């Protein structure tokens, strides 16, 4: 911030601040200026918070209301002040703590102590979240290239697809995380390490008669399954015709896409959002999977408008932004959480491409991420008071990146890659930086992320291009 404050609005804050012990250490006039600046900034932030707070509040106390109040109490000090003592950007809010986040994510790739046994089935995710987070932060990850390939070689199942680790059954979540990690690495060795033909047969075993996909053999069927399967089919340029041994052929299905869009439509709930499977509650993470499916099946403008009720979708999606926090929650009457910066924030580029208008409050989300979701010692978090992890780091960063950049969908599909099959997601174009109200400086910019695959810009196209050159199975 430039000049110290002299506005009367900040005077009471200033008095309060001067009375605190913080001022004791400050001896020279520079420090006194800093206190003034901080007080001014707090007053500015308080004014902002007021400007996005609705005057309407119900007082009826229930459990939901109580935890909401507690959350607000935890978040507000971070929106208003700077409890972490981060350096501030020119908008007066904490800078992106790039170096600390890089350190945290590099660490997340190292060896875990025995207490982390519970992540034994999710190791592929830790690789993906860390690699994606690091690349968003502008890091070169090529030092990890070989180790990534080796690590996944051990978890690729002989019957096709990837498991959580050596000897674990193939699972679509693990397959998704493994594929995206290999796409981020992006070397011919990484691509070639995937056994496409067994993968094809594994995906065939996941297809269900009602149109959806299970996550594993005899595992749960939900919209994650459909999304992960489409991601694999598309990136690896696999045939859309079901393999001859796909069990669901007995029910008369012949294509991976049979019944799929109907099934996805049935996941849209009465609230307008999208649920894990038909009948369940609308939820941000499942909404991203559903919109991701449609964005792989074609241009979002075609598919989202055709298969979803867009007005109620927009209503539900915009309702996810919490006020005054600015971050998103995942369901109606739930709490703000940094991972929805992506799960919900990532829905916006897809939906905005479908309606041709910008609708999300990007600055408010950016403010939540930078002010409240950065952990003091590095890594990003759900909300103040929580510990950082690779998951919340990756998805806060992906959400912030989505807010910082503009993409547009090339309806003419002029690019060389993705002319056929599930080629829909290879026709996104850069459209500059977000030009509306923002709260980040050049120093706070993240790298551009592909809006459907959530990998560095260009990597998905490179992978698809490689497998198009390989031809069909």
């Amino acid at each position, binding site marked *: 911030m430039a000049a110290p404050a002299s506005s009367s609005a900040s005077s009471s804050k200033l008095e309060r601040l001067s009375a605190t012990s913080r001022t004791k250490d400050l001896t020279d006039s520079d420090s006194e200026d800093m206190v003034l600046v901080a007080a001014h900034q707090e007053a500015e932030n308080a004014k902002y918070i007021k400007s996005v707070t609705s005057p*309407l509040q119900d007082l009826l106390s229930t459990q939901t209301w109580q935890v909401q109040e507690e959350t607000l109490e935890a978040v507000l000090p971070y929106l208003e002040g700077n409890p972490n003592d981060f350096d501030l950007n020119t908008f007066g809010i904490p800078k992106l703590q790039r170096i600390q986040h890089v350190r945290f994510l590099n660490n997340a790739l190292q060896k875990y102590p025995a207490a982390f046994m519970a992540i034994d089935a999710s190791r592929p995710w830790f690789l993906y979240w860390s690699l994606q987070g690091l690349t968003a932060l502008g890091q070169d990850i090529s030092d990890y290239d070989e180790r990534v390939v*080796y690590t996944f070689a051990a978890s690729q199942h002989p019957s096709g697809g990837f498991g959580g680790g050596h000897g674990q059954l193939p699972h679509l979540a693990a397959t998704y995380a493994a594929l995206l990690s290999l796409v981020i690495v992006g070397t011919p060795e990484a691509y070639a390490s995937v056994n496409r033909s067994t993968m094809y047969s594994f995906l065939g075993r996941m297809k269900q008669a009602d149109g959806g996909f299970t996550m594993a053999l005899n595992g749960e069927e939900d919209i994650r399954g459909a999304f992960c399967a489409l991601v694999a089919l598309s990136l690896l340029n696999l045939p859309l015709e079901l393999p001859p041994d796909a069990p669901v052929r007995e029910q008369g299905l012949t294509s991976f896409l049979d019944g799929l869009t109907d099934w996805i439509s049935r996941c849209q709930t009465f609230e307008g959002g999208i649920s894990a499977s038909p009948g369940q509650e609308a939820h941000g993470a499942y909404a991203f999977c559903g919109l991701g499916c449609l964005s792989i099946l074609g241009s979002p403008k075609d598919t989202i408008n055709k298969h979803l009720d867009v007005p109620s979708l927009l209503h539900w999606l915009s309702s996810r932004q919490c006020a005054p926090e600015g971050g998103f929650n995942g369901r109606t009457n739930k709490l703000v959480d940094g991972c929805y910066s992506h799960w919900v924030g990532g829905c916006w580029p897809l939906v905005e491409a479908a309606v041709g208008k910008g609708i999300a409050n990007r600055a408010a989300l950016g403010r939540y991420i930078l002010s409240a979701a950065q952990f003091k010692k590095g890594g990003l978090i759900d909300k103040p008071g929580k510990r950082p992890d690779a998951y919340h780091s990756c998805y806060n960063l992906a959400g912030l990146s989505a807010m910082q950049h503009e993409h547009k969908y090339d309806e003419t599909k002029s690019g060389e890659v993705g002319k056929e099959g599930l080629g829909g997601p290879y026709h996104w174009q850069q459209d500059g930086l977000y030009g509306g109200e923002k709260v980040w400086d050049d120093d706070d910019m993240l790298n551009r992320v592909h809006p459907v695959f959530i990998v560095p810009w260009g990597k998905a196209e490179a992978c698809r291009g490689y497998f198009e050159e390989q031809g069909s199975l």
Partner: protein
Amino acid sequence: MAPKKFYHDDPAWSDVEPIPQDDGGPYPLAAIAYTDEYREAMSYLRAVMAKNEASQRVLALTEHIISMNPAHYTVWLYRAKTLSALSVPLSEEIAWLNPTALRHIKNYQIWHHRQTIINQLGSPKGESDFITSMLAQDSKNYHVWSYRQWLVQRFNIYTDEELAWTESMIDEDIRNNSAWNHRFFLVFGKSKDAIPSQEIIDRELDYAKSAIRKAPQNQSPWNYLRGAVRHVKLPVSTLKQFALEFADTEKPDEVFSSHALDVLADVYAEEKGMEEQARRALELLAERYDPIRKQYWNYRMGLLGEGRVV
């Protein structure tokens, strides 16, 4: 804490050659320093899976691994497969599962396993009570509610009793959106095109309205109300008089619910000659009563001229 269990010196396992863990090359990423006990048990699991063995000792082995790491889908799936191959009494499995589930409430492999077992058992007996006890700890747990919906569908429990239970969950916390979703599922979700009787529609609209009167900013019943109206293909103007109880574009200082303004904006957008009123409602939302969503309300304003309605 249970004593450590090893297999290499157990005569009952002497015929099995364990398959050691391969973390992925000499320098694996995100490898875990497993305890010796876990590492060995997993090596024996890989071995029995490779042979496709289904036996009592496999059940004991999976139970042992689950006790150390319940978030391991492979172990659960292989246990389910073994159970069905051995045709052991499934009620015993449920009895074992109950305390395990209570210890690991956020773990969703357990719920899928339970679903597999109950599906084969063919009876939902006792399940409702069990679910209720789980929700008492975590009233919005997505997996628990999803499991309940599966149960209702699988055993056709679209009953008054189920509805009364759902109502008791809403009574406990009128903002519990999972409970509202369950109600919608029970009343309107039985089949996609089925429209309930007028009597039931009236009952549902009244129910949501009385909830709104208790806390007009609670979006759950508003979404329910609008969802119900849309589902039974009534015009949104059905809700006009009710919304006017909480907001009136002519009285901008006396607004008690932003959601009422939102409904009114839609009502007026459809009503001939009322476009200005719709615009006023959206302006009040953008500028005063729900400013964080300003861009969204502006977007809706932009649709007004186009003869399109949200």
